[in-house]
């Protein structure tokens, strides 16, 4: 039970609740027994199909009933259906699960059921003797819209992000990867703490590089501006710092590394107690030491000094800073 406030209940109140629940338990168990009984008998009728819907409305976590529902479709309904019918049935199925999903946005089984529906949408309709992808494209478009709607309600719902990635990867007609840069930017701009969106942005760049749509290691021209804006707006927000670390990567580009270090030093001047400034400076200066200036005692000393300060301002992680200090001395 996540996020359900505890309420002090008198024994009397508990007894009253239990009394009220009696009828509900009875009807639920009857429903549950009925559906499992039909399943045992391999009942693949329309009646059984409707029964599963009633059970799932009451309890969308009952995975066995989702399984049964799919079995009914596969064995009872699909064999006597035209592709048109199957397409209609599955789009109705998606509508039903949208309803359930709205109140249960984090139930694995529902997301999983949608994937199964999508995978079973037939090709069609047939236009001028050619089989088109019209049905499938319409379903995928609808699913993309749904995932985005779910992300409007909860921008961090990882089920919705994963599902969205699956939809995009599997679309009958692929969207250009670059549209994903615009989407993640929009999500970041509506909440800069949304690390899920920053993460997705990093994956989008990686995909663009892999496909050759963008030269390896290249970003949109304002990429650093976007991150800088976030760092300066709220230097205590981890999201942009983690993304910044991805942008810098192994720190092979000395010019970028040095420019970023000096910018963070400016921010530290404005915000002298910023833990994330100090922590990042240690990381980037160590990259500079490792890759470009292995002999610099100035860098080494600056790291040591920052690590000392970090031990005072961020005591929970004191041991980590000590361990890094030891590593520097080794």
């Amino acid at each position, binding site marked *: 039970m996540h996020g359900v406030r505890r309420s002090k209940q008198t024994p009397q109140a508990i007894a009253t609740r*239990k009394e009220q629940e009696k009828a509900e338990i009875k009807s639920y168990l009857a429903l549950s027994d009925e559906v499992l009984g039909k399943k045992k008998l391999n009942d693949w009728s329309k009646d059984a199909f409707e029964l599963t819907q009633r059970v799932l409305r009451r309890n969308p976590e009952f995975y066995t009933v989702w399984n049964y529902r799919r079995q009914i479709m596969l064995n009872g309904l699909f064999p006597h259906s035209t592709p048109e019918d199957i397409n209609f049935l599955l789009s109705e199925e998606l509508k039903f699960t949208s309803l359930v999903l709205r109140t249960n946005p984090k139930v694995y089984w529902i997301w999983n059921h949608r994937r199964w529906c999508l995978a079973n949408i037939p090709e069609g309709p047939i236009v001028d003797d050619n089989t088109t992808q019209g049905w499938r494209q319409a379903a995928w478009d609808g699913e993309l819209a749904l995932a985005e709607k779910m992300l409007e309600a909860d921008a961090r719902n990882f089920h919705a992000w994963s599902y969205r990635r699956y939809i995009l990867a599997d679309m009958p007609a692929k969207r250009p990867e670059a549209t994903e840069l615009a989407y993640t930017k929009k999500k970041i701009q509506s909440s800069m703490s949304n690390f899920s969106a920053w993460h997705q942005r990093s994956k989008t760049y990686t995909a663009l590089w892999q496909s050759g749509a963008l030269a390896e290691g290249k970003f949109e021209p304002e990429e650093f501006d976007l991150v800088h804006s976030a760092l300066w707006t709220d230097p205590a927000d981890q999201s942009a710092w983690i993304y910044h670390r991805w942008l810098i990567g192994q720190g092979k580009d000395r010019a970028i590394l040095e420019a970023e270090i000096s910018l963070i030093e400016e921010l530290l001047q404005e915000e002298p107690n910023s833990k994330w400034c100090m922590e990042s400076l240690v990381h980037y200066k160590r990259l500079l030491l490792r890759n470009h200036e292995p002999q610099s005692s100035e860098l080494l000393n600056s790291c040591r000094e920052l690590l000392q300060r970090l031990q005072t301002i961020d005591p929970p992680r004191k041991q980590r800073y000590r361990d890094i200090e030891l590593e520097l001395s080794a």
Partner: protein
Amino acid sequence: MADSHLLIDKHVQYIQNLGNSKDDLSYHMTAHLRMNAIYWGLTALCIMGHKEALDREEMIEYVMSCWDDEAGAFGAHPDHDAHILSTLSAIQILVTHDALDRIDVDRVTKFILSLQQPSGVFAGDMWGEIDTRFSYIAVNALSLLGRLSELDVEKTVSYIRQCRNYDGGFGNTAGAESHSGQVFVCVAALAILDRLDEIDQPSLCWWLSERQLPNGGLNGRPEKLEDVCYSFWVLSALSTLGKLSWIDSDKLTKFILSAQDTDRGGIADRPGDEPDVFHIHFGIAGLSLLGYPGLVDLDPVYCMPAPIIEKMGLRKGWKALPRRTLGV
């Protein structure tokens, strides 16, 4: 109300009462989690030193009544379909009770191996949902069954590798955001497979240490709220990688204890919330790794009592905090 001590008696009682809640609607609505719930309750009892609080024979009979003979594995409840989630819980319960001889190891092994996909990841059941959780479950279960030699290790590891992110963490599928729960499963799977070299340890341990919030609790992802269940997931990975000292264990201990329900027993996701057996299990597991006095050692890789895993010769090189003595 919070307390500064672990209320073992109350939690034991809370777990015992779970089986007597058949007049509670939520008991029936959570039947699909029953096998997991028994594993959570049993393991928490073992760690608190009260394994006997639930009847062994009754529990074994229940587990066996969930056998799905068509699939050759366990469902969560009698007549529920087999799933890898409930199958691991069943195996863990039987191992804990030294009753593995009750199951058809060949068939279960076959069921698990049949779920591996061409990419190397495992599905949860025949319907094909994939997740690195299921990879861990497969690895853990095969290891407990002594059948790890039948697994294509390279293939399994290669999918986990695909799920590794630049922050060092792991997501539930390739491309997904790092999440403490997925970090636990991926690190533990790699530990069982002796492949911890696949991990970018400095980055991951940095990311894990940053899960601790000012109130001492741990969150699952950057800029999210704390939750007792992450106490175990984050701590498991940190202890497997030998970096438990990278967070403030006193503050975390206090946070977990403050999420106890001092009236009825039980531990919640955070102070003031309704407790449940899932959070008791992960809260107690976390406290054990933190060296809380009087608890039995928990193996962070298998998430089972450490003495059992040691006896089977499966212990990996994890390091928990030294057990403190009472009153200190």
